[in-house]
């Protein structure tokens, strides 16, 4: 059972990282578009 929680934690951390990266990229592109 602990294996499931471990996989859940890894997947969730991976998604939060990807989401934060996409947000950062979106902001950066918007800034470049406005320049």
């Amino acid at each position, binding site marked *: 059972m602990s294996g*499931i929680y471990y996989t*859940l934690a890894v997947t*969730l951390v991976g998604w939060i990282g990807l989401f934060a990266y996409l947000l950062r990229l979106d*902001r950066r592109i918007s800034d470049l578009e406005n320049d």
Partner: protein
Amino acid sequence: MKKRSGTRIAPWKYLVGAWMGAVILAAFLYAGDAMNFVPGASRIIFFHVPMAIMATIAFWTSMTYALAYLYVYREPGERRPITGREWIFFSVLLLGTLLLSRWPIGRIPFVLAVILVIGRYQASREASWERLDLKSVCAAELGLLFCLLATITGSIFAKIMWNSFWNWDPRETSILVLLLLYGAYFGLRSSVEDEERRATLAAVYNLFAGIVMPFLIFVVPRIPALQSSHPEDIWKSGGMSADYRVVLYSSLLGFVGMFVWMFQLRLRTGLLEMRQDESPLAPPAEEKVK
């Protein structure tokens, strides 16, 4: 200290983030273990299946833009609205292929006819062939990314179920051929320097790949003689419980949101590059090649 950007992000993008977070939690904590699977292994389906579906949608999206490109490139100029004659042709084509879709293999011509109509519609909205080519590439890139992720997750599933990452199962072989098919698309693009020539060759190749792709995904692995171990059509046969269905469809919706967001980001980056190339401050073409 770095200055914080004041740009606002569209609220639906935060919704995609929260939605996918909830899907991940539900996949592990809400849905139970599936029958006939190694306990826990079935949860990868919530990510593997939407990735494979998104790859298919992305490749078809790329094909619609390739079709639109060929139409606009053939007849450059202003936007061309769809004529009455064309509407009649498309109606007959859609109706005819819809009748064929009574048989499973007959659904492919119907989907291709829908793509043809969408491609023509895109051509009526966009007069710039450069932008259509860019959109086609963006969608193909995302398709290849999702296809690669579906292959990796499928391989992990195979390791858990059959104790081997790669079994040369018909499904595994067909997805590998698909990866090579679209890998060759990018190989072709990188081998031609002239922009117009590259875009035209890539669009024609894209049509070929888009027609072959559904046969690799939907037909080849289902040929009975090939005896694939891949679990097929569980939802159609009613073998999926309600909790599984809810999480799977929610995941698919989340992946659609991710695809739209990533497509927009890639397109905006490409448009910025185009703007930079057109800028008077941009270096001459010869210098850029070096």
